[in-house]
């Protein structure tokens, strides 16, 4: 058992933050209960059926996304080609793009009138039943969103395998399977429970995609029932009951994930791989890469194509577009920095915690926000702001920033947690022998080594905020609108061309952030470049 450097301060700070997040969620639910009056009794929703459907859908999404993610990360780790960075950026971009945009991109490829069907019509005169609706459609959209994200996070773990291990493996002449089982798998294993939990929760609470592609009430989630209770029946107590049901189920998943996440074993930066796998395996890797590119990149490319062909200049000439862009960037930037602070406090605390129970508890707040239904959360925030006496207009930006930060927290911790854990475990001896203080440890060791990961995390949080449609919907006004809100409003005013242009521009901003930010921060952090 190795002894970690003793850092009680870090553990204390993380504990305080964990408690604060718990208090916030309780306050949100409490505010709604306090506002509940004699409303209509909720319609008798078949909760058991909804739960079964939701759990099945989320479970399938999780398994498929992790499988796809591992395969893609494995192929990407082995291959080097021009535009690889762009592909990696595109993969990460999927998860933070507004769900609606991804869903419509998916339809333009796989839909009844999508490219594939159009080509089939033209070549063979047949058209297929579109797989894009019903359960298969939901799964397809979710795997595009979450599988690509999983690939991005897992690739970071594979790229962090130390050079010495690879050299050793190469000299032992491991075959491709042995190499995966002995070298790659231990590096991936640590990230899987956390990633799996995130993906499960995202799919469990997914709302717009499920409604758009689900085909009807047979494939709905609990979130829809909660929305109904709040909006249609105005049964706030019922909404809180349903929300608690959802939180309870999600908590089980979160606990399992937090308890089973083993600390990762290594941290370094991958050099150019001189160790290639043999012929047939290489063909397999290229095939995975090609399929991945078609599956993930095509829907996004179709969004770009539709948008840029739809009258770019008309949108760029609108003053409101630029106002929305500035608002989005300010909100995104603030929330990214806040997320960085929160994620560092939690991850540093967790990496310094020696007892398993403490690690588990400190792992929980990462996911807390995902378990709380968006409609309940925004409603609770609205009521809290209201009771604090601040005018809603003034509080709107602050609430949106805080909510978006909490929303990106699980992704931020999935990004920063594993490398921080690895530093504590691999460099713990060195840190103790140097007698570094906690602050010194961070400035001299963790920060320089984490540059790229911090950049990736900032990009994630920034783009999450950029693509958010959930919280802004309750707080947006005429003067306070972000790009996704503007896009949605355009769609609601018959301006589907403008909406397509905004969607394309959002995607371009997102990809730029993912390709640019990690490099930029790495440069700032003076991490050794190789």
């Amino acid at each position, binding site marked *: 058992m190795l002894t970690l450097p003793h850092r009680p301060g870090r553990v204390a700070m993380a504990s305080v933050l964990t408690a604060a997040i718990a208090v916030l969620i309780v306050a949100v639910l409490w505010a709604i209960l306090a506002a509940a009056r004699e409303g209509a009794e909720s*319609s008798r929703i078949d909760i058991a059926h909804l739960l079964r459907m939701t759990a099945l859908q989320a479970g399938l999404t999780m398994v498929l996304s992790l499988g796809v993610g591992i395969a893609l990360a494995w192929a990407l780790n082995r291959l080097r080609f021009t535009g690889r960075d762009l592909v990696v950026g595109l993969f990460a971009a999927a998860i933070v793009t507004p769900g609606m945009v991804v869903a419509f991109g998916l339809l*333009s490829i796989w839909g009844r009138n999508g490219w594939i069907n159009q080509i089939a019509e033209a070549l063979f005169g047949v058209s297929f039943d579109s797989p894009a609706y019903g359960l298969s459609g939901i799964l397809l959209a979710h795997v595009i969103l979450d599988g690509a994200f999983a690939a991005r996070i897992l690739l970071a773990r594979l790229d962090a395998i130390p050079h010495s291990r690879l050299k050793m493996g190469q000299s032992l002449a491991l075959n491709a399977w042995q190499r995966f089982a002995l070298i790659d798998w231990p590096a991936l294993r640590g990230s899987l429970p956390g990633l799996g939990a995130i993906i499960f929760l995202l799919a469990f609470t997914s709302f717009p995609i499920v*409604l758009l592609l689900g085909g009807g009430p047979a494939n709905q989630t609990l979130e829809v029932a909660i929305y109904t209770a709040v909006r249609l029946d105005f049964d706030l107590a019922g909404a809180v009951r349903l929300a608690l049901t959802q939180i309870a189920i999600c908590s089980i998943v979160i606990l399992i994930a937090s308890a089973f996440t083993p600390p990762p074993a290594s941290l370094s930066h991958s050099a150019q791989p001189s160790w290639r796998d043999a012929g047939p395996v290489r063909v397999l890797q290229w095939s995975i890469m090609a399929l991945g590119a078609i599956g993930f990149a095509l829907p996004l490319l179709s969004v770009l194509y539709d948008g840029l062909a739809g009258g770019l200049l008309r949108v760029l000439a609108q003053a409101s577009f630029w106002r929305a862009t500035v608002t989005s960037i300010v909100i995104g930037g603030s929330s990214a920095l806040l997320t960085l602070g929160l994620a560092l406090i939690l991850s540093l605390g967790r990496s310094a915690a020696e007892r398993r129970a403490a690690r588990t508890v400190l792992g929980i707040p990462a996911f807390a926000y995902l378990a709380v239904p968006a409609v309940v959360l925004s409603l609770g925030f609205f009521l809290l702001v209201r009771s604090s006496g601040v005018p809603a207009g003034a509080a709107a930006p602050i609430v949106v920033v805080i909510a978006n930060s909490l929303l990106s927290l699980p992704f931020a911790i999935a990004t920063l947690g594993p490398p921080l854990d690895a530093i504590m475990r691999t460099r713990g001896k060195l840190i103790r022998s140097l007698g570094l203080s906690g602050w010194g440890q961070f400035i001299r060791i963790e920060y320089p080594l984490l540059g790229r990961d911090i950049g990736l995390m900032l990009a994630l949080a920034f783009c999450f905020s950029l693509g958010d449609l959930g919280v802004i919907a309750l707080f947006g006004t*005429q003067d306070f609108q972000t790009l996704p809100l503007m896009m949605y409003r355009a769609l*609601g005013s018959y301006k589907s061309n403008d909406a397509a242009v905004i969607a394309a521009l959002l995607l371009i901003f997102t990809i730029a952030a993912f390709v640019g930010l990690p490099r930029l921060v790495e440069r700032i952090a003076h991490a050794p470049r190789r």
Partner: protein
Amino acid sequence: MVKSSSLALAVLLAGLSGAAIAQDKPTLTIYTYDGFASEWGPGVPLKEGFEATCNCTVNWVAADSSIGTLRKVQLEGEGTEADMILGLDTAIAGEARATGLFADHGLDMSHLDLPGDWMDEQFVPFDYSHFAFMWDTDTMDTPPASFEELIALPDDIKIAIQDPRSATPGLGLMLWVKAAYGDRAPEIWEGLKPHILTITREWSESYALFLDGEADMVLSYTTSPAYHIFDADDHTIKAAMFNEGHFPQIEVAGILKSSGHQELARDFLAYLTSVEGQAHIPTTNWMFPVVDLGDALDPAFQGLPQPEKTLTLDEAEITANSSAWIEEMLAAVQ
């Protein structure tokens, strides 16, 4: 030095008094749905038009949906900033009325030109249209002329509709089927089931599915084709006329009892239903005006087919049963 500082002080005071004068103007706060207050919606010209005469400021506050405006006011209770709510429709007017939050408007509504007479103490209508299924002349030769004809079409003819729990048109379709078929409604829904491509959360998503060619028909409004005619002289999108008759959506506005600007709010409603105010509605909200605009109505609206028959349901009946009817519908299409 003294001079310049006193000058600065004078400028500062002038600035402050200017601000104070601006403060003296009353502000009329109106809660409405997103689309109405957006930069493309009627909110912008109506604000401009009313502010030119009222010596006041109009402040639109957008909620994410029309029912959202009502819920927001209910949550805020007595302390709400809203003077009025604009954008509820006749399907939820009963529920809104039952909250007891709305004051009588006391306006004379006899000049209005609506399907049916308008007698309502609290709510004032500002636009209307009928729900209808859109079809595209490029992909369909003859549209169905009734729900039964739609059901009889081959299964690969797909429609996109909206969830009655989250979207006004979705609720409207549910009421339409109920008004036309009464107890036979579940049977109609079961017949429609194979044709339903998907049930979206909002109108926008389903309409986008139709424009992308994913759905052959979409539930929208008889006035939707006017947008395409106006925007690109595109006459390919038409509303299918059904023999059963059509259910209307009439959008209304009401003054809250808690408002401190009753008089001003009444003036706004009078302006909203005047010919001048109504002239802004058609080409921004894509609905029919509630007064006869004559030649001032945009030509895109002039030739639109109108239903032979307007179906109605009693408000009290809607309020009492809509939850049960929604469940009945969802069970039938499950």
